[in-house]
């Protein structure tokens, strides 16, 4: 089979960027705005306007070693203190939620896969995307690589749109 090709790529921050814009419905953490911003930038570079037509079978592969650390630590501290967490933390308690936000916003109806990397994160993401493209459940794959700094500051994210890679 032919290897997947890079259709578009983006980073956040790029020169001139500040923090990513707040994302309605998501609270407390920079994780979700960062994923949304870098995904939007990458998809806009390729497609300009959203949403994509139905049946595009574009997968989302979100790779993060620590996930949304800021929210997880807030929940842990609140629960340990005997408090009640806000309901929005439930809806953002797994990385699928922000992947689903991007998917709904752009109409990406391929598989949603979230991974904790076991090796180099980009290589892990490409390997998963290549598998989904080969297998035929996806025609394209949006990779999002994100890590937050241990102190909860926004960190960096990279998005890569891959295509091709189907078996002959």
């Amino acid at each position, binding site marked *: 089979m032919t290897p997947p090709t890079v259709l578009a790529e983006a980073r956040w921050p790029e020169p001139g960027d500040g923090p990513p814009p707040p994302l309605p419905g998501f609270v407390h953490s920079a994780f979700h705005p960062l994923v949304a911003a870098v995904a939007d930038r990458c998809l806009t570079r390729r497609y300009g306007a959203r949403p994509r037509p139905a049946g595009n079978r574009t997968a989302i592969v979100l790779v993060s070693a620590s996930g949304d650390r800021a929210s997880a630590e807030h929940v842990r501290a609140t629960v340990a203190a005997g408090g009640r967490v806000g309901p929005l933390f439930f*809806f953002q308690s797994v990385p699928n939620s922000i992947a*689903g936000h991007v998917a709904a916003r752009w109409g990406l109806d391929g598989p949603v896969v979230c991974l904790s990397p*076991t090796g180099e994160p980009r290589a892990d993401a490409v390997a998963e995307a290549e598998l989904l493209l080969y297998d035929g459940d996806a025609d394209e794959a949006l990779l999002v690589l994100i890590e937050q700094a241990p102190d909860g500051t926004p960190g960096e994210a990279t998005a890569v749109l891959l295509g091709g890679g189907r078996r002959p």
Partner: protein
Amino acid sequence: MAEQEHLRITGVHALSALGRGADALLAGVLAGTPAFAPVRRFDTTGRRVTVAATLPDAGPLADELADAVDAACRAAGLDRTHRAGAALFLAVHGGPEVPALAANLARRCGLVDAHRVYTTACVSASTAVADAATLIARGDLDRVVVAAGYLVEPDQYALFDAGRAFAPDGAVRPFSTGRQGLLLGDGVAAVVLESASATAGRGASPLATVRGWGRAGDAYHPCQPDPQGRGLARAVGAALRRAGLPAEALGYVNANATGTPYSDAAEAAALRRVFGDRAGRIPVSSTKSVHGHALEASGLLELVVTVLALRHGKLPVNAGFLGPDETCPLDVITDAPRPAATGHALTLNAAFGGANTALLVGVP
């Protein structure tokens, strides 16, 4: 397609509130007595709902995962050499501790490495199985141990309670009128997957075959499923195509149904989208009504349930059923286990983010 020639399930193990091991799980789901009880593992003061399905003597997750992998490998008849050639695919809730958990699990159990770690919420384990199937079918790997674990703990419990996801009446009633929500349950499972040649090469007998698999997204909402079930329907369609089986070959669907009003209706819509009126004649149950929702581990726990039920020839009940709901026009197994009419079944899972998976298994 030829994938079904290549993938064998040769060993399984599971822990849930129904007990330890495959026999306890099968007996529990066939008895159909829900395992929900007041939570003793941690303080639930201030929570709206205070029940879950927990195994009282469950140890730390790392230990239970290692025990599950060891037990599944023993059940498969894998010796040390076989294990050393097996890759680990792990499905757990994400967090900073996960990479070390996976690496230590592989080392402790004598597996070659932690090949992949899935943190895709409630389709983590089923996605791992689908990916393992693809890689074995392609010839990249000969043997994969898929392990998955979730033990009910205070943080996720508090989040689900805050999100009003729990059933206030303390019962999970999938597809039923009057269903009020889900309840959590312990689940730790491991499954050994092998190519046909690797299985035959060591003279092992398969328990079951993974005939087909599919993964698809809803592109609908961050958390809620597409009410028309389009993503799940495409996952089921992909599984059927890979299996090369007609709809009438299916004798059972182990449903994702969590007992949540809108998501059960969405799943019913997906089944009707794929099968049309036939959807009302395929026996369906969600064993979450008995063992609870094991989150990242649910796909593997329910795969094990499905394999064991097919091999035993009896289909487990959907507990908690109060009566039919017009939004779920399905043939729900409600009163007693039903004989399996065929040797093929689907097990379905869905998650936040509109993620959907379907696994189609067969028994000899």
